[in-house]
């Protein structure tokens, strides 16, 4: 019988998760279970019966970090259901919000969550960074501030900037606000230099570790990238292990995947139905986006030089966020330079229909699906967040990491080993509150004062 070692409350990730390692006496790891201990908050129950004008505002509350992506994805799905076009400037404002959100989220992960462990050693936290690398600490705060501040300028709030509604956005981005954003971007030159050093510093010190630790073979799913970072609207590419490419629509993703129930977790494990649970795992997020990107910035070239054109390296996620942060800044600048006008909202007329939409959230592809009636009241809801897509991959990477760390040791796992294993999980930047946004399946629940079971 293998012994079960538990890592309770994996540190430095969003939400709550634990890991159970099954160890044999000789130190061999049999399997790993990634337990999402953050329960489903049943957003499908919350949103059912709500009017479509409220849905994007409520959907943003799924997550306190990628609120913009949920807000915009809900709007896109409802517009898709009703066939509502949106004005060009509204699309630009939404892209600005997504880019700012991605910048802030990546800065949080790079500087506060995963960065300290990679830059110094496994056990260090942001406090050690503040003492040893004050410039790095300051750059992190500055970059996160820029991202948050831009959403505050556009939408009035730093968090839950829910300015998008079906048909467009509510607020005009006038010249004064545009100047303010440009001024913020101009102040970012110093932190940009620091983040360029960051990837160089890590890659030069521990390249072998970055390439092989927790490495697994999966497919990749992301929006098609061009010369700039595309987060809002582009065809979806499924990049297979053998570098073959398949173009999908959002609705096809839902047809192609099966979501497997796990009795130990609150979150389902999706995989490609054709290929089965073993071969059909796919990953999303910065690593998937960078595979076919054609950006032009030094961090991107450094990434490609170190990891190659096509990489399966799990720790590569940490480095792939750096060129994206640079691209976010460039993207915001180019959108504002391209000019915005005052036409930001079309009238959205509810129709009976089904809408599926995806956007690129900071952690990867986010999918929302809504059914509405002719009045605009929402029926069934489905949200598949990037971390949901990652469940199986996280488990496999953790298994690989545990095998490396515990190789040759007895059936015990010291605190130091646990922290090392956690690093493989942290590379994915999992957000457990998104992953458990909607319920797992049709759940029978008890009704007060009766034995009748009611389906949701």
């Amino acid at each position, binding site marked *: 019988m293998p012994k079960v070692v538990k890592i309770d*409350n994996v*540190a*430095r*990730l*969003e939400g709550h998760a634990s890991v159970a390692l099954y160890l044999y006496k000789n130190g061999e790891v049999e399997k790993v279970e990634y*337990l999402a*201990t953050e*329960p*489903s*908050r049943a957003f499908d*129950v*919350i949103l059912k019966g709500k*009017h*479509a*004008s409220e849905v994007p*505002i*409520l959907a943003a*509350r799924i997550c*306190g970090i990628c609120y913009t992506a949920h807000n915009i994805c809900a709007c896109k799905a409802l517009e898709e259901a009703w066939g509502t076009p949106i004005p060009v400037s509204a699309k630009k404002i939404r892209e600005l919000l997504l880019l700012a959100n991605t910048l802030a989220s990546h800065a949080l992960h790079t500087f*506060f*969550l995963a960065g300290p462990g990679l830059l110094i050693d496994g*056990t260090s*936290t*942001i*406090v050690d960074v503040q003492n040893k690398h004050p410039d790095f600490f300051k750059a992190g705060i500055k970059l996160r501030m820029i991202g948050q501040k831009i959403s505050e300028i*556009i*939408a*009035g*709030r*730093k*968090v*839950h900037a*829910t*300015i998008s*509604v*079906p*048909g467009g*956005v*509510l*607020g*005009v981005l006038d010249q004064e606000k545009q100047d303010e954003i440009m001024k913020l971007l101009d102040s970012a030159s110093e932190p940009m230099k620091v983040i360029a050093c960051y990837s160089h510093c890590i890659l030069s010190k521990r390249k072998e570790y970055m390439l092989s630790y927790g490495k697994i073979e999966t497919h990749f799913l992301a929006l098609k990238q061009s010369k700039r970072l595309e987060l809002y609207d582009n065809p979806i590419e499924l990049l297979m292990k053998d570098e073959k490419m398949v173009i999908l629509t959002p609705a096809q993703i839902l047809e192609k995947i099966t979501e497997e129930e796990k*009795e*130990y*977790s*609150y979150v389902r494990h999706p995989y490609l139905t054709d290929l089965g649970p073993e071969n059909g795992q796919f990953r999303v997020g910065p690593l998937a986006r960078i595979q076919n990107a054609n950006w032009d910035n030094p961090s991107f070239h450094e990434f490609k030089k170190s990891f190659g054109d096509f990489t399966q390296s799990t720790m590569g996620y940490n480095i792939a966020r750096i060129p994206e942060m640079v691209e976010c800044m460039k993207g915001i600048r180019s959108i504002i330079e391209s000019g915005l006008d005052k036409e*930001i*909202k079309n*009238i*959205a007329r509810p129709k009976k229909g089904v809408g599926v939409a995806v956007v690129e959230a900071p952690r990867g592809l986010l999918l929302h699906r809504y059914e509405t009636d002719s009045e*605009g009241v929402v029926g069934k809801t489905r949200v598949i967040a990037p971390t949901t897509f990652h469940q199986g991959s996280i488990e496999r990477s953790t298994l690989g990491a545990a095998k490396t760390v515990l190789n040759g040791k007895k059936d015990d796992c010291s605190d130091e080993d646990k*922290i090392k294993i956690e690093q493989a999980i942290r590379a994915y930047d999992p957000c457990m509150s998104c992953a458990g946004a909607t*319920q*797992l399946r049709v*759940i*029978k*629940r*008890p*009704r*007060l004062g009766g034995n009748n079971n*009611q389906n949701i």
Partner: protein
Amino acid sequence: MHSYLLMDRVTPTIESETDILIIEGAILTNQDETLVKRMAPHAKKVVAVGSCACFGGIACLGNLKTPFRPQKRDLKEPEHKLHPLVCSPKAFIDVDYFIPGCPPPANVIQDVLFALAEGRPVPEIAHTVCDECDRERTGEPPPIPPGGKWKTLLDVAPDPKKCFLEQGYLCLGRQAIGGCGASCIKANMPCEGCRGPVLLYRGFKKFTHEEKREVLRCLK
């Protein structure tokens, strides 16, 4: 400091003496309940940050359909079972201060925490979002739209200068606690009342019954 978002988990500190315990989020699992019950007695001051921690917020909307939460099959560890009712932590422990909002304004969190750290009285907020809003108002009580049908955000964008209520949009600014600087309204979005009704708290402490009556009288 015990916070597993920023630090590694250091279990022994859970039950050590704490100056300020900050609670975020509603109680969703039995484990959450155990955790707040373990930590609260060792804290000198307990502050609930965010609408979910103050009064349940959006998480509690999951209770609306039936009083029971959907029961998922049991997990391996019993401590992670879903709580039968989603609720705010104040159902189990005494909360000293409430900072509502979704999200709570950063400057308000700062004011409250600094006041607590320096031993000053915590600032009071007894005005509504409407008091902070600088849109044009005619002064007339807002008309109730014909048939009780408010305009929704699916229509054209609202006029950025005029009062939302007078334009026919449902704006909760008249009831909601202020302190946010009417930030959503400045971005042309009607107030969602994310900070809760002004009748609930004053200076982040709960109103007594008499105080509530007094406020109601003033509002009339």
